[in-house]
């Protein structure tokens, strides 16, 4: 029996083989969305937990990689939805080092804050399309939506970011 068929019937050894084949790729995708290595590890395990739980829905002739990426995207999106309520920035967030002083740091903080305050579905596309420069087609496939909807969400994310930045700048100016 083929590996994917064995997995679909609940064979744990087949699942382990698939896990070891795909864990790096799933982790790499998730870390681009959540931007925190520890959380990305936990979400990778959560993704494979969901994969194993819903194995009966997987067609052995289907594309496991695409299926796993879609589940990983949903797991990351669920995390962003919950994490958005806590607005603190993750410690391991990669920031661009800046040669100059306080003003540019203030600006960077404002951009960071605006980015982290984006609603989850917009932050997902903003991370992938604007920061990581993934193609709209890849994002669409991973999120289970059309490329046109990805484009719409990117536009809206940019609009929200622009408004947030304007209000944050106004806040700073009044201080």
């Amino acid at each position, binding site marked *: 029996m083929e590996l994917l068929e064995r997995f679909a019937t609940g064979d*744990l050894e087949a699942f*382990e083989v698939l*896990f*070891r084949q795909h*864990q*790096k790729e799933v*982790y*790499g995708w998730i*870390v*681009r969305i959540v*931007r925190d*290595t520890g959380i990305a*590890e936990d979400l*990778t*395990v959560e993704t*494979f*937990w969901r994969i*194993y*739980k819903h194995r009966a829905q997987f067609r052995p002739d289907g594309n496991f990689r695409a299926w796993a990426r879609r589940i990983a995207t949903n797991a990351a999106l669920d995390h962003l939805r919950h994490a958005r309520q806590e607005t603190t920035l993750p410690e391991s*967030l*990669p*920031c*661009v080092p*800046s040669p100059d002083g306080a003003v*540019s740091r203030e*600006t*960077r*903080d404002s*951009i*960071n804050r605006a*980015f982290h305050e984006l609603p989850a579905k917009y932050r997902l596309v*903003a991370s992938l399309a*604007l*920061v*990581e*420069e993934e193609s709209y087609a890849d994002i669409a496939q991973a999120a289970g939506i059309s490329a046109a909807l990805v484009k719409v969400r*990117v*536009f809206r994310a*940019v*609009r929200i*970011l*622009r408004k947030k*930045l304007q209000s944050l700048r106004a806040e700073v100016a009044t201080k």
Partner: protein
Amino acid sequence: MTNEEIKNMKELLNQAVAPVSDTALRRDLWPQMLSKLNEQPLPVFRVPWFDWALAAILSAVLIFFPGSIPALLYHL
């Protein structure tokens, strides 16, 4: 909104939020996966709450109005 505006926002974002350069997984996550599988056994069978509610309503109707049983059987 134009593509130019998106490009500008990309440049602005890149000043603060860098692309994740290191996406390599540092350790094997299988032991963690295995302990999760052992900790949380998969639910064997779950009945949604509204199915239980429907069953309760049907049972109540049959108990309190036994005359409806023939009508119910007729419609089945």
